[in-house]
């Protein structure tokens, strides 16, 4: 009576706020689409394959930014993944117990530094260093800003994310897996390889998580990448990413088409990062589940009757 109506209003009341979260996500997708209709209508699919980005003549193509985003993110992954995995392995398997917490904390500190601070350090410390490296390598032009600096700074930012998830995964590998390896005469590294093999799906998920993070990173990248919409495999040329062009040109967009083109880029960024993140969560979740079943299942299964 009164009680159940109270309970119902509790449910509906809290449910309304829960629904709000749902609406927000839907709203983002909707709003991004709504605010890019002009660009979608004018350019259609060509938008994604055109290299030209000319605000003056109103000709927009997103290819340079897609290139820059993917290239920088993949490079960052190549650098960050072995380091992040090495850290995860060290902290969870090799380090003395006293060092574990401090090292974990220090790694997470990397994640707590704001993007703008990374960018500031990038401009004034990293870029000069990269310029010296480029000069030493004989690159022309040796500006310092460019893909290399962006990849390096992204790699540092991605490391803590991949590392902490990988650490969780390794922690959840049942001890009996490693024990089985040891009992068969494995060295410590061989036992670690067994653990990694057990958690390999989750570790791939951890790497994808880092990838998603690198795709969406804005400030640090825009401050060191040079912001020039050219497609180049060279590490030394300045390039441009999706997030960076939005950050730089949004408030300068003089006409609606310009704005819509930028927002359409935002829409693509949204779709890609959400997709990558969901995939990564799926992979991580499926490994956690396997860790549990590996322990529980043998006890539950009944013996097969031989033929």
């Amino acid at each position, binding site marked *: 009576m009164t*009680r159940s109506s*109270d*309970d119902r*209003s509790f*449910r509906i009341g*809290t*449910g309304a*706020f*829960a629904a709000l*979260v*749902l609406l927000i*996500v*839907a*709203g983002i997708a909707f*709003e*991004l689409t*709504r*605010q890019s209709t002009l660009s979608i209508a004018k350019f259609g699919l060509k938008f994604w394959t055109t290299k030209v980005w000319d605000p003056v003549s109103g000709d927009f193509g997103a290819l340079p930014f897609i290139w820059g985003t993917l290239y920088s993110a993949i490079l960052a992954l190549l650098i960050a993944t072995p*380091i*992040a995995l*090495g*850290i995860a*392995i060290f902290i969870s398997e090799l380090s003395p117990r006293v060092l574990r917490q401090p090292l974990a904390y*220090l*790694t997470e500190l990397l994640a*707590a*530094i*704001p*993007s*703008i*601070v*990374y960018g*500031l*350090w990038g*401009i*004034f410390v990293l870029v000069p260093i990269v310029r010296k490296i480029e000069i030493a390598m004989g690159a022309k032009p040796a500006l310092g800003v460019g893909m290399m600096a962006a990849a390096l700074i992204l790699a*540092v930012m991605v*490391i803590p994310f991949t*590392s902490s998830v990988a650490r969780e995964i390794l922690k959840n590998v049942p001890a009996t897996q490693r024990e089985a390896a040891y009992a068969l005469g494995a*060295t*410590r590294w*061989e036992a670690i390889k067994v653990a990694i093999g057990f958690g390999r799906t989750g570790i791939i998920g951890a790497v994808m998580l880092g990838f998603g993070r690198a795709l*969406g990173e*804005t*400030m640090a990248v825009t*401050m060191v990448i040079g912001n020039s919409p050219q497609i180049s495999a060279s590490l030394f040329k300045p390039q441009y990413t999706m*997030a960076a062009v*939005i*950050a730089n040109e*949004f*408030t300068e967009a003089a006409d609606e088409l310009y704005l819509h083109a930028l*927002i359409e880029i*935002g829409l693509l*960024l*949204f779709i890609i*990062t*959400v997709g990558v*993140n*969901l995939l990564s*969560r799926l992979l991580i979740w499926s490994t956690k589940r396997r860790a549990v079943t590996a322990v529980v299942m043998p006890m539950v299964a009944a013996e097969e009757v031989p033929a």
Partner: protein
Amino acid sequence: MTANLRRRKIYSGLFEALCALAVIVALIPLAMILFYVVKEGFGALNVDFFTHMPKPVGESGGGMANAIAGTLILICIAAAFAVPVGCLCGIHLSEYPGTKFSSIVRFSADVLNGVPSIVVGIFAYGILVLPVKRFSAIAGGVALGLLMIPIVVRTTEELLRLVPGGLREGALALGATRGRAVFSVIVPAALPGILTGILVALARVAGETAPLLFTAFNNRFWSTSLTQPIASLTVQVFTYAISPYDDWHRQAWAGAFLLVMMILALSILARLAVRRLERMNRS
């Protein structure tokens, strides 16, 4: 020892050493960043920094008083928006965990967590700036709040789930309605952790720049108005950093230093809050 065994042991040692090297390699940029922030930033701090507005372009001196105030105002708005929404959503998810609705909401929160902050900024621009054709503190605060929500939802839900079921049953058995049981017994029990989650989320958004670029925009003057553009530490640091003026560069470092200190303070506060409230809960 056979040759095979010797080789395996060497490999084992080698790879273990590489892992240790990885740790060192990762700590180098950390040390460098902190070093430079402290060295350049602390040295550039002075009283003016906290009390003066930015000087016009080209003039040296001035400070970031308005930006500091702005960041504080923005995170307050963000919290005012995100805390009720996030907590109540988290409460719903923990009370009705199995329903289809809850699964969809949980999924949405996960999706929201992965959206780049600049995209969230575009969304806030679309719904709060475009209709009134004006940048505002509210737009910026809401954008930050949106970024906080997934963190608050997740911590709230997880912590409420950890509260022993016996507590709820005890309250219900004494005649409390569901709502009352939750708010008077269960939430207080999980409060330290929930508060930590909020502070952690705050620390994360206090350092955000991208979503503010076209929501709160920036403001050279002192402003605490919610419906006007407002300065913020992060945007100010960005503006100064990419400028060609040395004095502004110095101030950018100072701003970065302050930002890092602020985030550090929030994290420490989070830890202290947990400990203090846990002690209170126990007594």
